[in-house]
């Protein structure tokens, strides 16, 4: 029989039993819809986790001097005083995989303003630091490179610092504070970032120009660390190699010698978190696929009933010359049509459900084309798989018995 006629015949016999066809389809509709909704929720949470991690700066690399060793006793990391501004300049100029970079110095300072005082860490950095760490300014502005060269006594403060010195809701920009008795003018307020993954308050910070902190506050010639951001997340290994090469060369170390510095990245954290949310997605999707599987069993069940019910019809068709494969194809196409139409409706229903979940639960959902294709193909495969046995049964009927079946 021609395929066109087969499809027409299948459509007709399905429309003879509209209610039954719809209920059978419903199993597939719900199955496909839940797979799509679950994948959308999984994908959405994965993306929101990724966005949170990249707000920490996933491209971030920190270069510390290694721990010094004095007579076999190792000191803490960064205790050797082997990095200076020239190391930074070399990295900044000679590493193409590095986009933003800054030297950092860090000290702690006692802050006094308006009769209040507060102790926090003071970072001395270049303006690039705000790009590297994805720090946004709520009011005011970041200090400029020129202000840094001039060792201007200005600083950017975090929300926690502002709250403790000036009280909640007060804009600190333009106000004067003393840090370790040196007067600073506040030029900007950071947007609140909250705690980081380890419970540290990221808003309890003062950021001042590098030169100001290094020369005026700390009066040192070395730097604590260098922070850089790679041009992209995938360029992190390349940036690491370039930095290693440049610093080894500057520190007169051969390629086989151990470096006297350490490079840390946040890629491990990000990949761990992504993997976790990936597992969550798989878990949700597999639970949803079970309902799709149950829908498939529904198809098989109804097709078996249909084969028994239509034994006489099968006999007539065989009597007038239908071969086994014609009958097989007929029932297979019917099963396939149920799963195909169910799949299409399920995709629509799944998208709708995802949107409802997104708007009511305020969960991040993302529907990907892959998830639609995947669930659609899966439901089609289920139609063929569960339609096969009943169709096989119909095709193997003996025409004589089928014609006499009451």
């Amino acid at each position: 029989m021609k395929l066109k006629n087969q499809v027409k015949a299948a459509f007709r016999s399905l429309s003879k039993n509209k209610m039954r066809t719809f209920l059978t389809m419903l199993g597939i509709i719900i199955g496909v819809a839940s797979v799509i909704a679950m994948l959308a929720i999984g994908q959405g949470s994965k993306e929101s986790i990724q966005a949170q991690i990249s707000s920490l700066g996933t491209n971030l690399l920190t270069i510390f001097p290694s721990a010094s060793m004095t007579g076999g006793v190792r000191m803490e990391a960064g205790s050797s005083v082997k990095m200076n501004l020239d190391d930074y300049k070399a990295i900044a100029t000679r590493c193409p995989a590095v986009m933003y970079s800054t030297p950092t110095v860090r000290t702690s300072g006692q802050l006094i303003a308006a009769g209040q005082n507060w102790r926090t860490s003071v970072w001395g950095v270049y303006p690039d630091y705000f790009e590297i760490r994805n720090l946004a300014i709520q009011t005011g502005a970041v200090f400029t490179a020129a202000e840094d060269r001039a060792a201007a006594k200005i600083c950017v403060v975090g929300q926690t610092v502002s709250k403790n010195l000036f009280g909640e809701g007060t804009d600190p920009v333009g106000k004067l504070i003393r840090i370790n008795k040196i007067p600073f003018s506040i030029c900007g307020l950071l947007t609140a970032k909250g705690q980081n993954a380890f419970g540290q308050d990221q808003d309890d910070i003062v950021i001042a120009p590098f030169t100001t902190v290094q020369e005026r506050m700390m009066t040192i010639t070395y730097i604590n660390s260098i922070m850089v951001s790679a041009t992209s997340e995938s360029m992190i290994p390349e940036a690491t190699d370039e930095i290693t090469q440049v610093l080894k060369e500057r520190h007169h170390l051969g390629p086989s010698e151990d470096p006297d510095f350490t490079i840390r990245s946040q890629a491990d954290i990000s990949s761990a978190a992504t993997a976790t949310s990936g597992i969550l997605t798989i878990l949700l999707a597999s639970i949803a696929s079970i309902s799709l599987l149950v829908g498939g069993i529904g198809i098989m069940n109804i097709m078996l009933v249909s084969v028994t019910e239509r034994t006489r019809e099968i006999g007539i068709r065989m009597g007038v010359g239908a071969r086994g494969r014609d009958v097989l194809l007929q029932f297979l196409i019917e099963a396939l049509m149920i799963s195909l139409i169910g799949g299409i409706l399920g995709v629509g229903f799944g998208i709708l459900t995802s949107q409802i979940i997104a708007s009511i639960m305020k969960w991040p959902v993302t529907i990907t084309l892959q998830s639609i294709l995947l669930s659609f193909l899966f439901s089609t495969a289920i139609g063929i798989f569960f339609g096969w046995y009943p169709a096989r049964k119909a095709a193997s009927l003996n025409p004589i018995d089928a014609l006499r079946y009451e």
Partner: protein
Amino acid sequence: MEQEEEGNMTDAIISTQHLVKTYKMGDMEVHALRGIDIDIRKSDFVAIMGKSGSGKSTFMNIIGCLDVPTRGEYLLDGLDVGKMNRDELAHLRNRKIGFVFQSFNLLSRTSALENVELPLMYNNKISSHDMREKAMNALESVGLSGRSHHLPNQLSGGEQQRVAIARALVNDPVVILADEPTGNLDTRTSVEVMDIFQKLNKKGITVVIVTHEPDIAAYTNRNVSFRDGRILKDLQVEHPRIAGEELLLIPAISEEDTI
């Protein structure tokens, strides 16, 4: 003798030699056919008669290519059917045979026209357009062209059987096989159906019917009686009844009354 056999072979539509069919029912062997030799020639109108259990249905199934013999040879239109597989048998049924059943066996909720088209659906060589035309012609030859879009449950028994005959005709078969075609019909409708068969036979179509009613067998040209799996009698009918003439004598009943 030799020559006569040769002659029979060439224009025989159905030719069987020592046809044997044995069924296994548990430990019992049922000998449905115990050696049938028969030639049915082109344009024959044959009635196969016999009581139930005589083997006539088994014989019908085998010559209808629904079943294969245990032993013996069966040639349909010169083709050896005995060793064919399921698909080859289906192909033969589609191209060479038209079936008419006692219980009509029309597809429910499917129009008369589409029922008639059914055998052509399984013939990929026929286009949709030809299909419709052939089906309409077949319906016209049984006098039902005006009812082509009726569903089986909107037709009387006689009309349903005429649709079935149209379906049997549509693929231009070498033989029409009818299994108790009048078994579910009243007297007048039975005569009407036999009238159609006689008219088709006049056009040169070979018709074989199975019946246990001698009245019905009297409309055919040749009566073959089966008993216990063997042919008991094989007689030419000297003066067949003419259904067309008898219909004029039976008081006509309107179609509404027969439903």
